[in-house]
């Protein structure tokens, strides 16, 4: 059964140095509050997994939390580059970042395989692409029945998956509405799951086919209002597009990034 605890205690007990951590949320419901707690607790050597490492991983990478990144699209959507990510890849700052690169179809399939407790995923992918030449975890596999050559990748099995959702009930059952991304698959593929929510309610009033994660697959539920800001929470608040644009300037230099981090993430520690 999921414990309803505060975010500081949940991060302290569930996320450790060196862990493979997936913070998922496809544009929607990105768990920024949890990521900021990871930064405040100075986690190091994390392997960060995420299909779209946007601002949230720019912040974790710039803060020095990551050793390795597994991803399929790294940009600031509609704005441009992730400057902290690029600084790490191009100049090893603040530390070198190993990069393991896939496509969206690949990672989505790898989470599904992880959730299904399979060692690898099989799909039709990368035809003619150079990516398999630079990533030896993307390999050909033959169909045992027809001999057709398909693509295989290892399952994604994070130590911890972190997501944000709109609501949980008092038992810790979690309801996700709107754009679902790969959150359900990423939670079920992981050994531990931390879920932040906008609010706890008595009754989720979920439809029979709603995307609901039962409390017994979730390790901890934490209340974090506006915990997905500057991304959005369908039914609660809209995407802060201005912040995504402002991030381009904030993250452009090491100094302005550090100032932002000090004032907006690290200072809360004292509070």
């Amino acid at each position, binding site marked *: 059964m999921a414990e309803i605890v505060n975010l500081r205690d949940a991060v302290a007990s569930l996320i450790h140095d060196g862990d493979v951590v997936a913070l998922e949320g496809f544009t929607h419901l990105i768990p920024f509050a949890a990521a900021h707690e990871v930064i405040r607790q100075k986690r190091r050597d994390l392997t960060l997994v995420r299909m779209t490492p946007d601002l949230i991983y720019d912040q974790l990478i710039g803060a020095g939390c990551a050793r390795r990144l597994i991803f399929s699209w790294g940009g600031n959507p509609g704005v441009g580059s992730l400057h902290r990510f690029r600084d790490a890849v191009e100049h090893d700052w603040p530390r070198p970042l190993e990069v393991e690169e896939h496509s969206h179809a690949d990672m989505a399939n790898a989470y599904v395989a992880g959730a299904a407790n399979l060692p690898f995923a099989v799909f039709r992918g990368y035809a*003619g692409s150079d990516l398999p030449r630079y990533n030896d975890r993307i390999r050909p596999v033959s169909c045992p029945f027809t001999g057709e050559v398909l693509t295989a990748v290892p399952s994604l099995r994070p130590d911890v998956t972190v997501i944000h959702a709109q609501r949980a009930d008092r038992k810790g059952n979690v309801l996700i509405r709107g754009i679902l991304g790969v959150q359900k698959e990423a939670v079920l593929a992981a050994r531990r799951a931390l879920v932040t929510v906008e609010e706890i309610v008595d009754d989720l009033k979920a439809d029979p086919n709603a995307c609901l994660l039962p409390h017994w697959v979730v390790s901890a539920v934490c209340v974090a209002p506006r915990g997905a800001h500057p991304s959005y929470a369908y039914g609660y608040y809209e995407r802060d597009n201005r912040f995504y644009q402002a991030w381009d300037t904030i993250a452009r230099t090491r100094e302005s990034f550090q100032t932002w981090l000090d004032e907006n993430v690290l200072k809360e520690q004292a509070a």
Partner: protein
Amino acid sequence: MTRLTTEIAYTTTEMMTVAAARRLMDRAVCFVGIGLPSTAANLARLTHAPAIVLIYESGPIGAKPGVLPLSIGDGELADTADTVVSTAEIFRYWLQGERIDVGFLGAAQVDRFGNINTTVIGPYEHPVVRLPGAGGAPEIAGLAKEVLIVLEQSKRTFVAKVDFITSAGYLNGGEDRARLKLPGKGPVAIITDLCIMEPEPVSNEFVVTNLHAGITRARVEEATGWKIRFAEGMKETPEPTDRELSVLRDLHQRTAVAHGRAD
């Protein structure tokens, strides 16, 4: 043939968006990327293709956004979709399941055989410029029945050979792609702010088939990193009509107002 009915001046970007929108048939099932592809697909939906089905990789199927999404997973897409499925389902059942007629892609670099690079400029291990990466494009390029590529044309973006093939066009040309026996036939057009290019039969090298009104051959040559050729029987792209321009501008206007209001 130039349409002289319009007295509204238009930009080359508007011409590009309109030319791209016109390539989408009504009722087509279209896998849409954010930015220019999404703008063009929605322009098509609001003009000649009201029954077009727009699928976004974040999960919305049959999205009919009233304002353009700034991100691939905007709430507007969920609100206006026929259904919203998981991202895994989009790639497994809908793209891999060969339900997509047209994949609509942008690019950082494209080459003369329609190969797309969105990964790195320079060597992979020591990139000069690290680009965002693959996203959904490699599988869209292989599995959508056909692909349209839309991007602004310059010597920097139109190169003889891409530094990295993220998503396959016709590879080294000729029969190279056919050997892979892919379900998708590959890029059928590259639509730019200057012209439309299509693959030449047999060689599969992209040649100019339509010059946009007012654009010279010399201007296209200057903006292309290989010795671009012009198809026999090359036509002029009809200028945007009043209706196309007014619908496009209304869409941008509504989008600016809506996103300006977002907190």
